[in-house]
């Protein structure tokens, strides 16, 4: 039985017992401390005294060399060039402001240099040297050398600076490196970046940052009392980053960029067999070199505020209505899910009405195409045929079918910031607008207008998948890497993401034939690009409205301001029977797809298939 009255004597005895135990433990713990001090201060005293004595050993991080970037033929796209920079070691400089003022009398130092320097000064340890100016001229280097005695703690260092020898070529694919900022430092392992000044900001440089960067090394440096380096005691060499081989063909890339010229637009060319992106052009571009050591504020504003938006990666993030380029995919859906309609002949009077509705959906050809079937509807780009086919298919079937080709989804390319664009569905509309799906919206979805948006990359991937008869290859920018200190190249196997199975595989050929007729048929919308070819091109033109034309409104090209003109689109692959290149071209406000975008495709296909030896 438990006592309810407290037993004071027993409790006191218990407490005193515990106190004694506590005291014993305290004494043991204090002995442990004393033991450690005996070890550190008596037995290891010599060792630590040497470390701490007159000669000071400092540990300095050595940055790894960033991996190089090559194109598919070994042309160098990103390299590291030595460059002289003026560096301060803060712990050795008594008055930093005075030193900067004195040094600016012999070397030009801008306000932005000082701002950046001050920011870095507050973030780093005082023994880590911080660059004040990059890319000194030889003249400046020699002027400093003469005056060096006046500036203890200031040195000229040769550092490696990223350089993009091709300048603006493929700038949106390669991206660029620039100085690390605080947010990026939080994303990476700070010790591995303790000597690193630059980090990949966009493009390949960003996506493959961890491969390109490498591992930091350490120099244990002995310095005298003034802090001058006497010798390196121990060196753990940094491990350079891996080299990357891009799938981009820089020749083809230049042709694509030149073809776009002054237009705003994008060209994505892909090898359907393995997903290699052969060209990835977004125009206008920019010179990535100006970002590396810090772009000045005015130049950056100019780029950012430019109406042509050169910093915007159109190929990856630009969202455009696909227009008629969607028709082959809708047509294929028709053959699968509404074969009766798809295989019938329809009369195109130049307009289409839904049952029980007044509204007329116009064809681009005012007088109509007459009797059409699927083949001629694709070759001549008849809208009415597809209005009617879309109604028979319904939005749900179209959504599910197009989705298999990658519309409305990220393609899985190895670049950061890809856009999903938009493949509309009932659920999407209910979620976004709290409205049901209207039949009229199904009609215009059939010709790639309305809500539907696609990126040039998505269009290229969809075209490649169609050309492959359903094998969906993951698009990729890098096909091989080379680890440091070896000559062996690691090839990355291509990745098949999906295989679209049709109920009737013959339907692939029906659509491919129709697309061949776009270029090689007597009435094809792009027949002007089909002359003198040893192989057949399959393609589809598209002219996407930028703004809605009201019903029955007369539409005058001349009066429409440049920015409201139609986007010009073209998708193609060649050779049609055994495709080696698939591409998507978008020229913003270019006008008709057949007149502007299609001839560009011919240039690229010629360049790739007629000239390249492989």
């Amino acid at each position, binding site marked *: 039985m*438990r*006592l*309810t*009255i*407290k*037993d004071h004597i027993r*409790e006191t005895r*218990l*407490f*005193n*017992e*515990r*106190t004694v135990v*506590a*005291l014993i433990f*305290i004494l043991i*713990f*204090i002995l*442990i*401390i*004393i033991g*450690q*001090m*005996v070890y*550190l*201060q*008596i037995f*290891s*005293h010599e*060792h*630590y*005294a040497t*470390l*701490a*004595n007159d000669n*000071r050993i400092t*540990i300095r*991080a050595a940055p790894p060399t960033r991996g190089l970037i090559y194109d598919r033929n070994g042309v160098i796209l990103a390299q590291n060039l030595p460059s002289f920079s003026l560096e301060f070691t803060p*712990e050795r400089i008594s008055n930093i402001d005075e030193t900067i003022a004195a040094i600016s009398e012999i070397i030009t130092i801008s306000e932005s240099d000082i701002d950046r320097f001050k920011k870095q000064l507050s973030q780093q*340890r*005082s023994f880590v040297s911080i660059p004040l100016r990059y890319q000194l001229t030889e003249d400046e280097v020699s002027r400093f050398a003469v005056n060096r005695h006046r500036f203890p703690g200031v040195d000229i260092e040769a550092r490696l600076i990223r350089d993009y020898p091709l300048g603006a070529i493929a700038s949106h694919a390669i991206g660029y490196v620039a100085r690390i900022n605080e947010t990026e430092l939080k994303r990476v392992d*700070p*010790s591995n970046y*303790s000597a690193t000044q630059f980090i990949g900001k966009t493009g390949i440089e960003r996506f493959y940052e961890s491969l390109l960067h490498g591992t930091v090394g*350490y120099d244990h440096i002995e310095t005298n009392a003034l802090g001058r380096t006497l010798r390196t005691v121990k060196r753990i060499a940094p491990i350079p980053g891996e080299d990357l081989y891009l799938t981009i063909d820089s020749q083809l890339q230049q042709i694509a960029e030149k073809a776009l010229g002054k237009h705003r637009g994008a060209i994505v060319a892909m090898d359907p067999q393995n997903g290699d992106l052969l060209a990835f052009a977004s125009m206008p571009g920019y010179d990535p070199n100006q970002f590396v050591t810090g772009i000045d504020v005015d130049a950056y504003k100019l780029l950012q505020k430019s109406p042509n938006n050169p910093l915007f990666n159109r190929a990856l993030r630009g969202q455009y209505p696909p227009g008629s380029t969607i028709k082959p995919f809708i047509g294929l859906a028709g053959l699968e899910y509404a074969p009766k309609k798809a295989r019938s002949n329809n009369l195109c009077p130049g307009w289409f009405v839904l049952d029980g509705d007044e509204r007329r959906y116009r064809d681009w050809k005012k007088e109509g195409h007459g009797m059409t079937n699927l083949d001629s509807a694709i070759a001549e780009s008849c809208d009415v045929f597809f209005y009617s086919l879309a109604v028979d298919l319904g939005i749900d079937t179209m959504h599910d079918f197009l989705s298999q080709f990658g519309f409305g989804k990220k393609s899985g390319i190895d670049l950061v910031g890809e856009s999903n664009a938009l493949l509309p569905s009932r659920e999407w509309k209910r979620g976004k607008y709290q409205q049901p799906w209207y039949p009229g919206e199904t009609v215009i979805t059939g010709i790639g207008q309305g809500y539907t948006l696609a990126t040039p990359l998505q269009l290229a991937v969809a075209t490649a998948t169609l050309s492959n008869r359903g094998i969906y290859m993951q698009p990729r920018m890098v096909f091989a890497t080379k680890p440091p200190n070896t000559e062996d190249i690691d090839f990355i196997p291509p990745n098949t993401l999906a295989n679209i199975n049709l109920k009737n595989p013959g339907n692939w050929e029906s659509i491919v034939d129709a697309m061949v007729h776009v270029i090689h048929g007597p009435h094809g919308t792009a027949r002007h690009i089909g002359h003198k070819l040893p192989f057949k091109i399959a393609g589809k033109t598209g002219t996407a409205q930028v703004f809605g034309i009201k019903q029955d409104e007369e539409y005058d090209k001349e009066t429409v301001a440049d920015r409201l003109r139609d986007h010009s689109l073209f998708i193609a692959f060649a050779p049609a029977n055994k495709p080696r290149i698939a591409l998507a071209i978008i020229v913003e406000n270019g006008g008709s797809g057949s007149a502007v975008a299609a001839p560009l495709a011919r240039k690229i296909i010629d360049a790739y298939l007629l000239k390249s030896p492989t």
Partner: protein
Amino acid sequence: MIHTPGTPRWGDRRKSRVFVRGLHLDWPLVVGLILLSIVGLAILYSASGQDSDMVNRQIIRLSVAFFIMFVLAQIPPHYLIMWAPFLYGLGVLLLLGVLIIGDEGKGAQRWLDLGIFRFQPSELMKLAVPIMLAWYLAESPLPPTKKHLIYATLLIIVPVGLIAKQPDLGTALLIAAAGIFVLLFSGIPWRYVIGCLFLITACTPLLWFSLHDYQQARVLTFLNPENDPLGAGYHIIQSKIAIGSGGIYGKGWLNGSQAHLEFLPERTTDFIFAVFSEEFGFIGIFLLLLIYLFIIVRGLYIATQAQDTFARLLAGSLILTFFVYMFVNICMVSGLLPVVGLPLPLISYGGTSMVTLMASFGILMSIHTHRRLLST
């Protein structure tokens, strides 16, 4: 009658009692604490690079802390019994408040901005948890029953969990220790203690994965500082160099090269012990440990002399917590424990934890000097 406050006269009970009764101070403790403060100020002067402004600010903080100790010494322990549940409840509410609306300082939410000043509720819990537990366990006969043990454990886990979530692992462990000390002093059977130790060892892997990245990094660095000599390992390497190069006699006051050449990070706060060791050597450390030991033994003596269970448990827990502070700090600076960010009591520069610590000494003194009043 002449009595010099500098000499501890605790052997002479009758005389000291006469003197003490008025001020409710325990002179041996006061002497020990003042000695520590003087050592602290001297080493701070050196560690800060002879910055007298910093020393002055520390003197002001010390004065405030001693004043708070004095005030708490005037409050008889039975008031603490009355306040125990309210203090505890308030503390838990404030901790919840911090989690919801707290200010972020150094990446962790610890502060509550009260407009005029910022307040760290976890500091309050350092006192509230042992007070609450001592009150709860002293209510019924000791050793506590299983039911009481379970409730007592919950009383510890709730605030500790909230603080660990901030995340402030150092303080959370300290408060857990304060609570566990009350349990140990209450006489829970040793087999429970050993069982718990086994359980904790078994749960170590689980605990590991619940740690934040930077906390994991600290532990890894502790295990092998040379792996990361510029990152997290830097503190420990430099601190060991400072201690080891001090040798038996030290380099002398103001002569520590490691500290003055700015190799040693946080040399005025958490790592001040390394500066002390470099300048005063092994002999200095030995004497410093003697001062600490003197204060701890005096604290334990006060605990054994306390007249009721509540006071006894509380006093025991408070003095052991003080020991943990010192022990953990010295161990982390000398590379025996991972860096958890606890200051060296009364020596490190900084005010928040010092005030709490001195408040706990005020309570100890109150327990000792109000004995007569309670028993009459």
